[in-house]
Each structure stands twice: as structure tokens, then as C-alpha cells.
């Protein structure tokens, strides 16, 4: 028997079933994937135990981009912590800043002006769109749809231009401050955002046209790696992954913060909790976020963009030339920072990937005694192993894309 026909014979005997074979000796292979593998979306390392093409177990190994941000934050005054926490989950910097600032504001018992709350909502939702666009582009790339990447990044680029217009930075904008936002929006910003939101729904339709009728994508997503709602709740999973399994839990609706209760929007939910539902839920959120941005722009209240509590918020620049008191406040805030009364708070918000909760403990000094981020990527990553168990290795790649972990947020 030649080597080729021997191979044919062996190939015929390969069963494509993902169930373990009765009575057969199972040969398991441990395969290392990552940390520098493009499909892991960052520096995630997976130890996969395979039986042929079937994944029997995976163990995520993390910590490759651990930079000790929580430790660094303890060594900085409250307002200097904002730029470092923004760099945790590098696709949702407005959310990180919002969670942290919200926690400190709760400790200070601060009132946030309505205009600042609306400006925050506009930027948070633009950020959610941006994050989902990066997810959609890179996930489609993992599933073989190259062109989606360019289309999604075209729209993402437009959002980054908007961020640059309002805050001067494209990423890590430090726009959200304790007490409000850094600056009022410039003239023409509202018009630019309107132009963007006017074309965003059509663009999202185009993505759907490209992907929804694609046989390859559908067969790779539909019915793969299902995890039911109860298991997800046990794994503390929140966000689009939980909503894809049919649980409409969204903090923007359940426990509104920053005036989210003023807006009319829907929570997209899935039915079975497979990869297709995860894809559809996030895709549907593109439309809902666009709706929120439009409503927030239309109803944008007049008034100050930041609280006028001079013990916490920097005085306006022009006052420094005329007011001695403003100069003293400015000096005190820049050198020492402000002191925060003792206490502990946990401030959760709905990030693009789930509940993003910031725990801040104050010991009464000008520096936080503990800052902890409950990052949704870190918690949701645990759900990957039960999802992909007994599925094919190709479905594992699809699932990892649909879980959407951002390794900056996982490792912090």
C-alpha cells in the first residue's frame, strides 16, 4: 500500500462529529495559541487541548500587558488618575474616565450640570460606536471578510476626527473631568456629529448587506458555541454577550446614570445565545447608539459644561488674570489636588463590553487609597472556555472574536 492511499484511508476514517468516540483511545494534543497571534486580538495566550479538530478545553493565560495602572493610580492625585485609567481598555477610554469620575463625584457628593451630562452621553455613545466598529471590522477579518475591516475603519476614522475636534485628541482624550467635561463643544461640532449620525444607519445597513447574506459567515456563526443565560449569569458575564442569550440587562435602562433616562432607545436582545446572536446584538446597538446621540444633540441643555465647585474644578483661564482667589484655587488644585472625604464607592456603568465598575476608596487625602476597575473584558474572558468546549477550533476563533476581549482592559 502506497503512502498516498494509506493517507486516503486514514482520511476517510476521520469522523467530523464533535462528540467523543465510544471505545476509541483519545489522543489529546496541547496547542499553544498566542500571545502574538492575530486572532487573539492582542496579547492573549491560549493553551488549547485538542482532540483532532475539536477543542476539549482552553486555558486563557493573561498578564502580558499588565502595567499596574491600579497601583500607579494610588500614587497620583485624583485628577491626575484620569489619563492613566483611560489607558486600561484602550477602545473605551470615555467609559473608563466616566466610571472613575463618577465614583469620585459620588464620594464628593457633586451635582453635575445637565449640559455636562448630555455632552458625556454624546461622547460615550460615539465611543460605543467606535468600539463596536473596531470589533466588527476585526471580527469580520477573522472570519475571512477582508473588506469589512476597511469599511468599519472608515467610519471609526470619522468618529476619531470628531473626538479630535471636541477634545484635541483622537484617543485617550481626557475629556471627561471630575465635575463635568473639559470644554464645551466647539462651534460646528454639533453639525459635524449630525452629518455623521445621518449617514451611520445607512452604513450599518451596508455592513448587514455584506455580512448577513454571506453564506460563509452565516454558517460559521449560526448555532456555534451556544452558552445559555444561566451559565452566563454564573460566570458574571454582562453586556452584549448576556443580552445575546436573551437577558435584557443594560445599566443604561436598569439604573440610569448621566441622564440616560431622558433618551428613547431600545435594548437589542438575542434568542439562543450563539455567535450569530452576539453578532446581531452588537450590530443592532450601532443603530441605538446613533439614536441616543441624535436625541442628546437635539435636547442639549444650555448652561455650564462643568461644575463651579472651585475646590474641585479648575477656575476658567481668564479669571486667573483678575482674581487672586482663582489663582490660589488654581495653585492648590495643580500642586496638591483636592481632598476627598473618606469612604468607599462602587460606580458601575454600561461599557461597550458590559458592566464597567470603578471602585474607589478614599482615606481623606488628595490621592485615592485604592482604585479598582471591574473590567468586563477580564470577567467575560472566563466564559470563552465553556463556550468553545467540544466545538471546532475554527469556531473557537469565531467565538473569541464575538466575545471581544480587549487585552488592555483584561490585564490593566
Amino acid at each position, binding site marked *: 500500500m502506497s503512502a498516498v492511499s494509506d493517507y486516503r484511508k486514514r482520511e476517510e476514517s476521520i469522523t467530523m462529529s464533535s462528540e467523543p468516540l465510544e471505545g476509541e483511545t483519545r489522543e489529546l494534543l496541547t496547542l499553544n495559541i498566542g500571545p502574538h497571534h492575530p486572532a487573539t486580538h492582542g496579547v492573549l495566550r491560549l493553551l488549547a487541548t485538542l482532540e483532532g479538530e475539536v477543542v476539549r478545553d482552553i486555558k486563557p493565560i493573561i498578564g502580558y500587558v499588565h502595567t499596574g495602572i491600579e497601583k500607579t493610580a494610588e500614587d497620583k492625585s485624583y485628577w491626575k488618575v484620569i489619563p492613566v485609567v483611560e489607558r486600561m481598555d484602550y477602545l473605551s477610554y470615555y467609559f473608563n474616565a466616566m466610571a472613575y469620575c463618577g465614583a469620585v463625584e459620588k464620594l464628593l457628593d457633586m451635582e453635575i450640570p445637565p449640559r455636562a451630562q448630555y455632552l458625556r452621553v454624546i461622547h460615550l455613545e460615539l465611543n460605543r460606536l467606535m468600539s463596536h466598529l473596531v470589533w466588527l471590522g476585526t471580527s469580520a477579518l477573522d472570519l475571512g471578510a477582508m473588506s469589512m475591516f476597511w469599511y468599519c475603519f472608515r467610519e471609526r476614522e470619522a468618529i476619531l476626527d470628531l473626538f479630535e475636534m471636541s477634545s484635541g485628541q483622537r484617543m485617550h482624550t481626557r475629556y471627561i473631568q471630575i465635575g463635568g467635561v473639559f470644554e464645551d463643544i466647539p462651534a460646528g461640532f454639533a453639525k459635524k456629529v449630525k452629518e455623521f449620525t445621518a449617514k451611520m444607519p445607512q452604513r450599518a445597513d451596508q455592513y448587514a448587506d455584506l455580512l448577513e447574506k454571506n453564506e460563509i459567515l452565516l454558517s460559521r456563526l449560526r448555532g456555534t458555541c451556544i452558552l445559555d443565560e444561566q451559565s452566563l449569569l454564573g460566570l458574571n458575564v454582562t453586556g452584549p454577550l448576556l443580552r445575546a442569550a436573551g437577558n435584557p440587562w443594560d445599566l443604561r435602562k436598569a439604573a440610569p446614570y448621566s441622564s440616560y433616562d431622558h433618551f428613547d432607545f431600545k435594548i437589542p436582545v438575542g434568542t439562543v445565545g450563539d455567535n450569530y446572536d452576539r453578532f446581531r446584538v452588537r450590530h443592532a446597538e450601532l443603530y441605538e447608539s446613533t439614536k441616543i446621540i441624535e436625541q442628546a444633540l437635539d435636547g442639549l441643555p444650555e448652561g455650564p459644561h462643568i461644575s463651579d465647585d472651585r475646590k474641585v474644578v479648575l477656575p476658567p483661564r481668564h479669571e486667573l488674570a483678575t482674581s487672586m482667589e482663582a489663582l490660589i484655587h488654581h495653585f492648590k488644585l495643580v500642586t496638591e489636588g483636592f481632598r476627598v472625604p473618606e469612604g468607599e464607592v462602587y460606580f*458601575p456603568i454600561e461599557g461597550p463590553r458590559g458592566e464597567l465598575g470603578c471602585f474607589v476608596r478614599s482615606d481623606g487625602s488628595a490621592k485615592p487609597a485604592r482604585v479598582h476597575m471591574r473590567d468586563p473584558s477580564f470577567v467575560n474572558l472566563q466564559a470563552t472556555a465553556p463556550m468553545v468546549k467540544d466545538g471546532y477550533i475554527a469556531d473557537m476563533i469565531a467565538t473569541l472574536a464575538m466575545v471581544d476581549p480587549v487585552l488592555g482592559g483584561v490585564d490593566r
Partner: protein
Amino acid sequence: MPDADALQEIAQELRAADATSILGTTHVHGRAEIQIDPSKNVAVIEQLRAKGYNFLASLHGVDYYPEEPRLGVIYELLDMKEVDRVSVKARVPLEHPKIETVVHIWPGADFPEREVYDMFGVEFEGHPDMRRILMPEDYEGHPQRRDFPVGGEPVLFTFNENDGYGADR
């Protein structure tokens, strides 16, 4: 958030089951917190879970340096039906930093407990895989403790690659 009275009621109910399990309650900044005896954490959490607080939103550690008992483990519990949150805090002493795991209740507590172990050195008894998670396996010390210095490690360059931490790896 339960209001101050509702929090007292919850604490009373928990005390009725085991008088020594609850050490106190606080209700500040709109946050309800129950301080518990660390050796009774699973019993208290099971009771709160039966009352509806059945989602573990977050689990994190705190260092109360220099006060003893120094290390705190905080469970942020959530009732999704009533949209209600309650925090449970167990403080363990530095000489005996041990507490029972809740992984059997919520498998999702796996990573957070490993993180608390890694950063603060609190050992979770009964955890199936109590290893470091973010720091290297051979790292010494628990960096998030308040008495652990910031930037205490030299950066390895070519001239000092043969001495200091990590040189033998």
C-alpha cells in the same frame, strides 16, 4: 441600593441565622455595605443569594494599611430583578490571609479571586487553581499592598541583564 432601614433589616435577618457572622453595616454615599466575619463568608453570601442578590458584579481586594485586619475582600452583589446592590466586606489579618472561595457558587469568581491573591496575597481556600494571574509566576511579593513600593524594580538593559530580578529566566 437598599435604604438605611432595609439594610438594617437584612443585617437583622442575617444575624438571626448566625449572631456572630455580621460585624456591622454602613450606609454612606448611597452604598450599602455589610461587614462580615471572614470565616462565615460563604454562609452569608448564600443567604444573600437566596434573598435575590444572586449576581456577583465584582470581587476585589483592598489594603487597609496600617489598620488591622489589613486586607479586605469585597463582594459587590447585585439583584437584577430589583436593581439593587449590596456590598459584602470581609477583612482578614495579614498573618492569616485566608478566606473560603466562592467559585462553587459563581464559576466567574475564578479570575477575580486569582487577581486578589496575586495583588494582595489573600488565599482563597478551595479554589481549584490558586495561582498568580497578572504578575509572572515567579514574582515575589504582592504588589497592590500599600507597603509595596512603586517602581521598585530596575529595568533590565544589556549592561545589567545578568544581575537582578529576572536575570535567571
